[in-house]
């Protein structure tokens, strides 16, 4: 047990409304179903603790001092010159964020939690690095939220994820912001031979703007990446989301799955798979439901450069079919109940290999959003 900083008291002293918001992003103060925890309020790291053998969760500054080689992973997957947001983070003299190191062969099913909470500062910036060494398996649940009374602000985050040979990283990110908050995650993932990267993203509460387009580069044979996104845009929200996979080695595959609902906001759902090696496969699936007038703009791109790649996409945008609602009404559900039941099914993207606790967290976020449909 390495407890660098632990002050759960600070979390418990948060107002009840904020603790509820954090709980919905996956934060468990009691840590019953978590094996490690990192908690940052604005630019202050409140907690880092990890009880799992072979796994370290430490603030980025500590990690860079402790291990000389960590610097090789810093600004490697993401270029500091990518855009103004990465430049902003790169120039910080006092970087904050989390480094997770899963040492060779360490396998833990119970999730590590990373919570980033925006409360008083206008801008929160983080630089995270997750490293799963050969054969390691970890589940990370990242909850990002703002205080219930926070009206305006921005969260800028760079996350670099390295999935080593035969390693597996499942990253589940749940956002719970406010209508005036803008969010700019800049993430990139590198997956080596036989490695698996699973990403789940859930954003179902109002936010001003989310803009992100994480890229996974599959550089080793048999590497797999899968991005699943479940998003709801409420009036005033603009979600410009996408994910990209570069099939850069033989026998690699990628799947990008999105379920998007607008109740008046705008969703741009981008996706790009580049097949540039033999025996590669990729599929993009985007399904959108327009419940109230809003925009869902699906932009799936598949790009192959040789005969040995097989890429496909399917996208559909529309309203709930009337005959589906009436079918359930004929079984005794009211129109509202039938609609909610169909939406619930629409959002039910069961992700194979996802631990039950992570699925439960996603389900809780859906339950919370459902009351607003």
């Amino acid at each position, binding site marked *: 047990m390495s407890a660098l900083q632990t002050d759960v008291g600070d979390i418990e002293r948060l107002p009840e409304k904020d603790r509820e918001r954090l709980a919905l992003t996956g934060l468990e103060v009691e840590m019953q179903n978590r094996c490690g925890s990192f908690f940052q309020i604005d630019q202050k790291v409140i907690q880092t603790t990890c009880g799992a053998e072979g796994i370290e969760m430490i603030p980025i500054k500590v990690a860079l001092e402790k291990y000389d080689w960590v610097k090789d992973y810093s600004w490697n997957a993401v270029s500091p010159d990518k855009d103004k947001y990465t430049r902003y983070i790169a120039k910080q003299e006092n970087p904050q964020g989390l480094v997770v190191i899963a040492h060779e062969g360490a396998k833990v099913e119970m999730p590590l939690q990373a919570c980033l909470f925006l409360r008083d500062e206008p801008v929160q910036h983080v630089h995270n690095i997750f490293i799963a060494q050969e054969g390691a398996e970890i589940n990370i649940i990242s909850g990002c939220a703002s205080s219930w009374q926070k009206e305006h602000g921005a969260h800028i985050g760079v996350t670099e994820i390295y999935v080593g040979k035969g390693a597996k990283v499942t990253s589940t990110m749940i956002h719970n912001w406010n209508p005036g908050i803008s969010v700019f995650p800049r993430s990139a993932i590198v997956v080596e031979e036989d490695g698996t990267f699973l990403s789940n993203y859930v954003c179902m509460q109002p936010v001003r703007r989310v803009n992100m387009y994480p890229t996974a580069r599959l550089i080793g044979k048999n590497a797999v990446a899968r991005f699943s996104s479940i998003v709801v845009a409420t009036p005033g929200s603009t979600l410009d989301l996408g994910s990209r996979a570069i099939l850069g080695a033989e026998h690699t595959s990628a799947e990008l799955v999105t379920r998007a609902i607008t109740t008046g906001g705008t969703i741009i759902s981008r996706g790009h798979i580049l097949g540039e090696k033999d025996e590669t496969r990729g599929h993009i699936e985007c*399904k959108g439901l327009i419940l109230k007038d809003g925009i869902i703009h699906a932009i799936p791109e598949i790009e192959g450069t040789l005969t040995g790649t097989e890429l496909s996409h399917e996208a559909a945008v529309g309203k709930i*079919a*009337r*005959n*589906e609602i*009436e*079918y*359930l*009404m*004929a*079984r*005794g*559900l*009211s*129109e509202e*109940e*039938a609609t909610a*039941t*169909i939406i*619930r*099914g*629409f*959002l*039910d*993207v069961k992700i194979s290999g996802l631990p039950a606790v992570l699925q439960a967290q996603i389900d809780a976020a859906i339950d919370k959003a459902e009351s607003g449909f």
Partner: protein
Amino acid sequence: MLDISDLHVEVDGTETLHGINLHIGQGETHILMGPNGSGKSTLLKAIMGFGDYTITSGSIVFKGTDITRMPIHERARLGIGMMFQHPPAISGLKLGKLLTATSHLGNDAIEALAQTVNMEHFLTRDINVGFSGGEIKRSEVLQLKVQQPDFLMLDEPESGVDLENMSLMGKEIANLLEKDVHIVNRRKSGLIITHTGYILDYLEADQGHVLIDGRIRCHGNPREILRVVKEKGYGECLRCKQM
């Protein structure tokens, strides 16, 4: 149980049922026959209350309550149930979830009911997605076994079903209609659309009706109607009425 008086129904602005009168008493099962496009499914859907089927005049009274303008789910809760011929496939919605949402039964009870129609492995499947003809029918029967309607409408229960499934379906439908209960105590009623009459191998029907061009042309003994249609076709029914 069900009283339909002078019912006129429009679909897409065109009248397709022209003054239907039908009375189905408690415990009775009626058979509805007629050529394709004669309005049989339209009648069932109008009784269920679907939005595309506009009742322009006439009335439907069920258990003494006028349900002519009642929303679909209230009709269902009052005891009307329907087996769909072409139910929609709903991506993501599990059959088991639907059964839980529409009843107060626990998982064990639902699982036990599913076993009776060999559907226990379909509870975690998206409803009707990739189901075969027989599987759709068994799923419909399972939903009705959970719902337990007092008045059951079946739209061509035989279509797309192989012999083995037909036997299972026939028995289950007979049970839903309480055919094992003595006529005096039987509470369940039914209206069954059939082209082939195979369903009569599994249950007795009390009355038959022939619907042609949106009008009921005749009533009578269901087996006799079936025999006449088999031997002489619906043309005979048309001629018969004109005579």
